[in-house]
C-alpha cells in the first residue's frame, strides 16, 4: 500500500518507489529505498513526517502516494 495510508508508529518496509529517476535518487540518498525500514510518525493532511534510520524526513502527499510499503 502507499505509505500515505499506512498506520502511524508501525515499522514498514519499502517495496517499491514509483517516482522519476532524480527524485528516486534523492530519496535513496536520504535512506529511502527498496528494503528500507520506515516509520510514519506524523500525518498532516497527507503530508508525512517519517523516521528513516535516526533521521526525520518530511515528504508531501504526492511523494507519499508513490512510496509503496508492506
Amino acid at each position, binding site marked *: 500500500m502507499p505509505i500515505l495510508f499506512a498506520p502511524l508508529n508501525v515499522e514498514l518496509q519499502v517495496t517499491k518507489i514509483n517516482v522519476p529517476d532524480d527524485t528516486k535518487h534523492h530519496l535513496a*540518498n536520504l535512506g529511502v529505498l*527498496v528494503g528500507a525500514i520506515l516509520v510514519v510518525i506524523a500525518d498532516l493532511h497527507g503530508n508525512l*513526517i517519517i523516521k528513516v534510520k535516526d533521521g526525520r524526513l518530511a515528504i508531501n502527499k504526492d511523494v507519499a502516494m508513490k512510496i509503496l510499503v508492506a
Partner: protein
Amino acid sequence: MKKFALAGNPNCGKTTLFNALTGATAHVGNWPGVTIDKREGIYKKLEEPVEIVDLPGIYSLSPYTPEEIISRNYILDEKPDCVINIVDGTNLERNLYLTTQLLEINIPVVIAVNMIDIVAKKGDAILVAEIEKKFNVPVVEISALREKGIHVLMQKALEASLQTRDAISVLEDSKLAPLINKISALLLERGLNNPLFHAIRFIEQDDFELKKHHDLIETADEIKETIPVDGFGDDYEGLIASLRYKYVAQNFSRAIVRKIQNTTVTKSDKADRVLTHRLWGIPIFLFIMLLIFHLTFGSDLLLLNSIFGLQINGDFWTMLFQVEAGSGIPSPGVFLQSWVIYLLEDLLIPFVASWINIAWIQSLVADGILAGLAAIFSFFPQIMMLFLFLSILEDSGYMARIAFIMDRTFRRFGLSGKAFLPMMMCFGCGVPGAMATRTLETEKERRLTLMVSPFFSCGAKLPIWLAFGSLILGGQHGTFVVFSMYLLGIGVAIIAAILLKKAAFKNEASPFIMEFPSYHTPKFSNLMKYLWDKLKHFLFRAATVIAASIIVIWFLSNFSWAFWTGMVTIENSMLASIGRFIQPIFIPLGFGIGSDGWRFVVGIFSGLIAKENVVATLEQLAGSGGIATLIGSMDLASAYSFMAFNLLTIPCMAMVGAVIGELSKKRYVFETIGFWLAASYVVSLVIYWSIRFWWIGVSLLATLLIIVIISAVIHRPRQARV
C-alpha cells in the same frame, strides 16, 4: 600550503566546524543547504598553516544537484591533501553512506564524528574503533559547536595527508564485485585517475561516464547478464545504493551503543507534535510572527498600557524610555531606536554643526551626510532585532518545519514549501534570500520565487514604513502602517504567484522531500557573531554606497546647472529640474501631483541604489519644514501609493545583482525587471485611486470576487492525484 576539504551531508555541522577552525563568521543555519558555494579559510594552529575548504553539503557524489557537482569536482580535480568527512553522530548510518563513496577516491580521508556532545547527552556512545578498523581511516570524535576535539582532528588530518591512501569500496564483497573489478581494470589501462570511483559511477549509469566510455557498455552488459537479478531489475543505481546501506547497517549497527532503543520518541518528536500539529501548526507560526513584530515595532509592550493602563510617567522614566509621559512601555526595538535617535539627532548633529563655521561645509556635513546617515542609523536597532529573531527561528530548526506546514498552501501557487525559506530571508535582506533560491529544485520555481522575492519587505525598506508610520494617520498608528506594508507585500506576492503560475509558468511544484534537523537551542555567541556580521555589512553600506549617494544628492540639490555661481535653494537646484522632468510619469499614482511631487520621484530613484536612501533623500530634499512637513502634508492615498511603489519596484542594486546571478538567461532578467516595474506601477495606481475614491476600491474588489468565483466554478478543484 596544504589544503584540507570539509565534506559531509547537509546540516551535519560543516560550516560550524569551518568557523571554529578558521575564526570566520560564515552564516550557519539549521537548515539543509546553507552553504551553497565553497568557502576557504586558514587553520593556523598546526606546525604549518593549512587551507580549509568548506564544500557545500551533499548526500552523495553523483552529479545531480549543483552542490554535488561543486563538491565532487573539487575533490576529483583539485585533489585536496586530505578530505575531512564530517558525519553527524546522531544519524550515523545515513551519514556513512557518503563516506562509502568518498573512500572510493584515492585520497587521504579522516572521519570526524560530529555532535558527539548530543550523542553523549542521550547516554549513547559510538565505537570509533569499529569504524576505524572497517574503513582503515582515522576517526575522531568532535563537537564543532563546543569546539571539542577539533585540534586532534586537524593533527590526524595532517598525519594522514603525509601518506597516500588507496581507494577501497564497500561493494568489493558484493555480487557486483566481478563487474566493478573488470571495468575499473579497463579504466586503469586507459590511464584514468581514480578508476574505482569512475567504474562504479559507470555501472550506476551516470550519463557523463557512459558517454565518455561508451565502448565499454557492451563489456559491462555481458558481465551484467551473469549477475543474479533481484528486486531492482536493471536499476543499478538503486541496487548500488541499497548495497551501500546494507553494508553500513550490517557493519555499524554495533558501532552505536544505545542507552535506550531508538524506537522511543525523542524530544524533537515531542516538540513536533505541537509545532507541526495539523490544526495548530499554522496558528502557532502566525502567533510567533506576530510576537516578533510586536517585540520589534510595538510601542506598547504586551499591550500593558491599553489593557492594564500601565503608563510611564515622571521625568526620570520618560527620559529613560525616551517616550512622552502617559505612553506605555516601548518594545525593545522601539526603546533602542528612540535612544539612537536621541543620541544622533539631539546630541551629535547639533554638536558637530556648532563647530563648523563655513556655511557650505556645515550644510554638507550636518544637513547632508550626518542628517542622511542619522535617518538610516535610527532604524538599525529594529533591523537588527528582526535579524536576530529570524536567525533564532532558523538556527533552532523551526524554519524547516514551517516550510513543511506551509507546503500545502504553497503548492496552490505552484511552489513547494521550500520556497518559504528564501522568502523569509527576504524579510531580512533580499540578497541572501535570492541566493537561497538555489535550494529549490526546478528553474521555474526559482524564477517564480525570485520574481516575487522583493515583495517581502526587507530591512532596508523598513525605515520608509516607520518614517511614514510616524507621520501619516496622525502618527498614532505606526505599528499598523508597518504591518500593513508587510501584509501588502505578502498579498501582492500571493496574487502575483497565482497569476504567473496560471499565465506564464504553468508549472507543478516539485515534490517536497526534506530532512528535519533536530531542534536545538541556538548558541548565543553564534547569534551575536551573525548579528555583528550583519551590522558590519550595514555599516559598510552606510559608509560607502549610501554616504556617496547622499553626497551626490547633496550636490545636485544645493547647486543649479550653473554650479560655479554658488549654492541655491533646493527649488532651483539641478535635482529639482531632473525630478520635475520625470514627475509626469508618476502623476497617475498621486504622489507625483503638486509642487512636492518631484521630491518623492527623486526619493524613489535614490532607492534604486539602496532602499535606505529613500528616507535619507526625502530628509535632504524636504526643505525648511523637514521631513515631517513634507510627508505630513501628503494625503493618505498618495502616501500609501508611494510606499507601495517603493515596496514593489526594482529593488536595490545589490539585490538586482544577486537576482541576475541566479537567472540563467538574459531574457529572464529583462522579464523579471519588467515584471517588477509593471507590478509596482499597477498596484500603486490601484491603491491610490481606491483610497481616493472608495467606490473604485469597492468595485475593483467586487470584480475580483466575481472572477474568483467564476474561475472556482470553472476549475473545480481536482481530486487528489493517485
